[in-house]
């Protein structure tokens, strides 16, 4: 149905900048963000009429799909990513405007689901119940993941500050 793809094309044009930004927050780097957005949009576009008619809010559906795809993708490639994370000064790492931002670096150490919870909470401004619905987990899980993430971020920041000041804290 060509009309359907025209409609989907318009949707992509209108939402792409916001989705790339959101993907950047979710994945922590521009390349993974672009990859995630493209993969999810292509999947959703291939069944656009259904998504459009049944979900009521295609954009929210896309964003939830991205959070979930990010979590499951990182579950698959986690080992590589953890290893690749170690040499921070590697010359082939693409330019990341937040490369020297301690909080950004701390976020990168979070397991994907914890990161997704942080993004849904502080980027999207969703409630615990909404996050639970989006990720398909219980509210209890959201609460515990959020609390672990916050504790971990605080620790990392404390470590980063300590290194910066040479006090060796943590």
């Amino acid at each position, binding site marked *: 149905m060509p009309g359907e*793809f025209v409609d*989907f*094309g318009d949707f*992509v*044009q209108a939402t*792409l*900048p916001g989705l*790339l*930004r959101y*993907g*950047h*927050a979710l994945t922590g780097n*521009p390349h993974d*963000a*672009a990859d995630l957005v*493209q993969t999810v*949009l*292509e*999947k*959703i*576009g*291939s*069944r*656009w009429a259904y998504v459009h008619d049944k979900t009521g809010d295609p954009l929210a559906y896309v964003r939830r799909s991205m959070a979930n795809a990010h979590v499951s993708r990182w579950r698959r490639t986690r080992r590589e990513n953890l290893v690749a994370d170690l040499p921070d000064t590697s010359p082939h790492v693409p330019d990341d*405007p*937040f490369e020297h*931002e301690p*909080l*950004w670096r701390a*976020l990168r150490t979070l397991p994907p689901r914890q990161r997704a919870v*942080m*993004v849904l909470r*502080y*980027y999207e401004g969703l409630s615990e119940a909404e996050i639970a619905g989006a990720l398909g987990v219980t509210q209890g899980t959201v609460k515990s993941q959020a609390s672990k993430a*916050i504790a971990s*971020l*605080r620790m990392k*920041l*404390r470590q980063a*500050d300590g290194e910066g*000041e040479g006090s060796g804290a943590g």
Partner: protein
Amino acid sequence: MNISEDELEQRLRALFADERLDLPPPPDAGTVIVDGARRRRRRRHVVQAVAGVAAAVVAVSGGLTMVRLHTEDGTAVITADGTGSSVKPPENLTQGRLPEPSTPGPTSTQSIQVSAPPGAPTSPPPRPSASSSPSALAAVTSGPLLAADGFGKLKLGMSEADVIAQTVTLSDAQAGASCTVYKAQGNGVPASASVVISKAAGLVVVTPDVTAHTAEGVGAGSTKDQILAVYPAAKAEPGGVAAPANAAADYHFRLGETGVVQTSLMSVTQDCAG
């Protein structure tokens, strides 16, 4: 320095609101994504078609068993064919049970009941001694012809090398365990098509990208009743109707709101599903 939870939350909100998170979309990103969505949908349809083969094979093999059983009893399993021009000798019909020329026999094969349910006004009852009415239906000739043995120069059973020798190029390969799905195009085919080639059985499925018509005049827009009238042995299947093209292959017509929207030809014997 120990940072409070409130402060951390503020810093998170500030970071996520930072304009440096913006990533400029590449100029052609929209087109690339829409094309990608189209490709995914096409693949899904082909995969569904292949999955449909599994159901069709089960149905057909069940049907064949019935044919044998009924033939041994001398019952008129072949009446399904008899609606068209090939009329079976009456003695085949009378062995074992009395013929009921004006109404379909209740113990006939399932395919006959499907083709002419008792009392259904739109389907003429099989009348072995009379040429019946498919000719009253408007034959569809739009789109390319999908013959009972293949599509253009592509014939069912051809190996991949045979196919390529027919000036047909195969691309977008999606390999499965024993079969590979390709996009076929080139001089050897009237239109581009999705094909499934089995290592063991060769070309087993052809699905033209545009709605093809059969030699019997079923194609884009044909209704289920019309298909059943033209192919009395046709059977409903999920999403459409399957009809025998010849002894070796079935047509699979996918039905949408406007009637037939896709026509596939599939070998009866193949190992691509299940």
